């Protein structure tokens, strides 16, 4: 039962959240500019590091906000959490 700090609500038990997978996998500006392999890569291929990984989580049983969780997949430690970038900001 991880203790996850929602950037809006503070530390809450893991059961209030869902994990939405790797963060920063942006929707391509023009999907039809990608060939089938590139599109398939975007759809199905994600990083799987043994160590820190930025993920997007949602506080579904709380404020319903999506935000970024930096999690170490080896130690299962939450290293940091932060809000999603505002429109135009870099991740």
């Amino acid at each position, binding site marked *: *039962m*991880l*203790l996850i700090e929602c950037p809006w609500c503070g530390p809450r*038990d*893991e059961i209030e959240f*869902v994990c*939405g997978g790797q963060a920063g996998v*942006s*929707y391509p500006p*023009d*999907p*039809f500019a*990608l060939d*089938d392999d590139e*599109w*398939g890569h975007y*759809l199905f291929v994600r990083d799987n590091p043994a160590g820190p990984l930025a993920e*997007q989580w*949602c506080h*579904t049983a709380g404020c*319903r*906000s*999506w935000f970024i969780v930096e999690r170490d997949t080896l*130690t*299962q*430690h*939450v290293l940091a959490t932060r809000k*999603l970038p*505002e*429109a135009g900001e870099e991740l």
Partner: protein
Amino acid sequence: MSRRLAQGGLINRARPLRFVVDGQEYTGFEGDTLASAMLGAGVQRVGDSIRHGRPRGIFGARWEEPNAMVRLLAPLREPMVPATVVDLVDGLEAVTLSGRGVLAPSPRDRRDAVHAHAETLVIGAGQAGLAAAERAAGAGQRVILVDDRATPGGAIPSPDAADRVAALAGREHVTVLPRTAVIGLYDDGYAIAIERRDTGHAGAEVRRVWRIRAASIVIATGTIDRPYAFDNNDLPGIMLLGAAHEYLARAAVLVADAPVISTAHDGSYETVDALARAGARLPAVVDARDEVSSDARSVCDRHSIPLKLGTVITSAHGDRRVEAVSTSDGDRLPCDGVLLSAARAPQAALASHVGIPLAYERAVAALVPDGETDRVRVIGSAAGEGLPEAAELWCAPDAEHAYVDLSRDSTVADIDVALDAGLRSVEHIKRFTTIGTGPDQGRTSGLLAAGIVAERLGRPVGDVGVPRSRPPVIPVSFADLAGRRTGDLADPVRRTALHSRHVERGAIFEDVGQWKRPRYFPRGGEAMGEAVRRECIAARTDVAMMDASTLGIIEVTGPDAGPFLDRMYTNRLSTLGIGRVRYTMMCGLDGMVTDDGTVMCIDDEHFRVSTTTGGAAAVLDAMELWLQTEWPELRVHLTSTTDHWATIALVGPRSRDVLQTLTPDTDLSAAAFEFMRWRRAQVAGIDAVVSRVSFSGELAFEIHVPWWAAARVWDALAEHDVTPYGTETMHVLRAEKGFVIVGQDTDGTVTPIDLGYGWIVSNKKGDFIGKRSLARPDTRRPDRPQLVGLLTEPPALLDEGAALVDADGSLLGHVTSSYDSAAVGRPIALALVRGGHARMGATVTAPTDGVSCRIVDPVFYDPEGRRRDG
């Protein structure tokens, strides 16, 4: 024979307690465990062993007990628990078990759960734990001190332990929990403990689950003794040395008058001294080492106990209990007990839950926790502090019928079979022999097995590995974990505003997610098929109504609501226009159908989206995800209003007449109120939103009213002889029209085109979720599974899920929906068939039913759509 001494111990001799084991009544004292009371009454024998049926006796003093399993009958009913951890209460009744429990019919006792937070959680109230708790409390921290025993101080309490705990418990921010066992440690300082409140809390809950979040956790769980293996080492009367000491110190019980003690370290001699002082006449101390400390030797000298050095027990003898032992020097010693301690074993399994490794240390012949985490540390003897150096003593020479795991009846011979079979890893040998898999979690057998394996392979113990511990560290009953969440409280139940009406009508309900939905409304002893047939006929020829309130409803508002929906759904919704309704479908990024529903345009900045009953939460989550992560520039708000609206579907050729009667101010004629339009209207005096949508192909209206007004409208409709129908009839009606149910006719691998719903995918608007994937080669394969209708020849009802094969027996697909249809006059089915759209008229076979089927268009009824306007 074991017996109670006239004085000493921590028991309250002023409070005798009567108890019954296996039908025999005995007397113990307040402060006893069931095991110490049995031993005090001279009862050492417990249930026979699980596989070999051998006589067994009490072996340990706490959770390491492998033999003394009992079933509690009163006052608490418990299927199986070691007698060593049951606190004695007056009137306690138990029966001994042979390794298998018997479930109580239903746990009627109340169980509870609490959440707690602390800066420091200390596990174990022995010397080290008490000191740690005092330090943390002194620093002003919130402290929770849990201890498995009824009274603190560890196995052999120091005289001041009770006072120190009382002083701690008196502090404002300190919680002391006796009779409480931590069953597991989890991420970020999370611990789960179970408090046994059987005693002293009569009438209240008997168990309490503590869910504790602590900034720091201190494990101070001490040590137990590790035995070693020799022939017949399972006879009653053979026991762990530390357990004998605990029974003496806490319960004033001498477990044997003339026990042989066998050890391989100096730590045992304090107990030798204590037992001799209490009156035991020890035939010998058998020590595997060639040398012992001068202190150890002087203990034996003082009590004139023969000390056999460099010697081990090779065999125990006795009929129903131990009567003598043979030793490796060829001696034979008469005795009435054998007390074993080959080494001290730190009890640090909890540490391994959070990733602290347990490393074998040769000098002390024990597993010792190696390191700590940012939140968890082990202290005291559980951390290996002060462990006596020990010789490695695992197994007597030439032992064959020597038990390694008493709980599982596994022997040294079993290990040899495993080794002969080529197994080398202790984890594999554990699975092969079942060593360490009993309710005692291998406390006395895990390392012992590893030591024997290492010895036989001629390798260091550290190299063969040791079995890993996982939560829970003690057996936990499901009833404890469930607490009050049983029966009606097991899972939330969602009922619509019309639920009581359905109950009055005798509805048979089905669970749809957490919702209770009427499946059909039988009349006068009708079976389901008869009721559904009658309901279907009413909907097609007269008028019928269904409670559709469980459909999810999401209000999508804001200046960009229309463009947002264009991106989320497959067809264009932004141009819908006020007063119109459109059917729509949602896909995942992979182009597969995830949900469907209707969208009403309320005004330019307000759309009301309906979802499937089961998909409501997932659709809202998906919308939030895209809005927040990819399209933060869109000015859109989402609000779930599922619980605000009650929805009644009114269906059938007479539906307009009935509704018009209740809606005198609004013209409902086909010319004034067209298909796929909505309007506000007063229905039975209630402000309602009425739409002309149809999931049956018949003339139909959907009436949306506030939750509180639902019964009034339903009752008004019922006065016009409207037949209520349930989900089963709804399924038949829609299948007759070839309308799909997402999740029944789809399974996450089906595109709208596969369903024959290509018309719902807009090619004109911009990008939407799933669009690019619908252009992948795989989603355009002509041989994808596609939705078709099936007519069996001769007519027969197919099983949903039945496989479909072609003439060669090749698998083509499966049946997704199958019903007997009154309107079509025969059974009909929908199916996903490979390349099905190009197989119209072909024949396939459902081999499990032995039935031939003709592939037909999935629209079985009124394909021209003439009935929707009435």
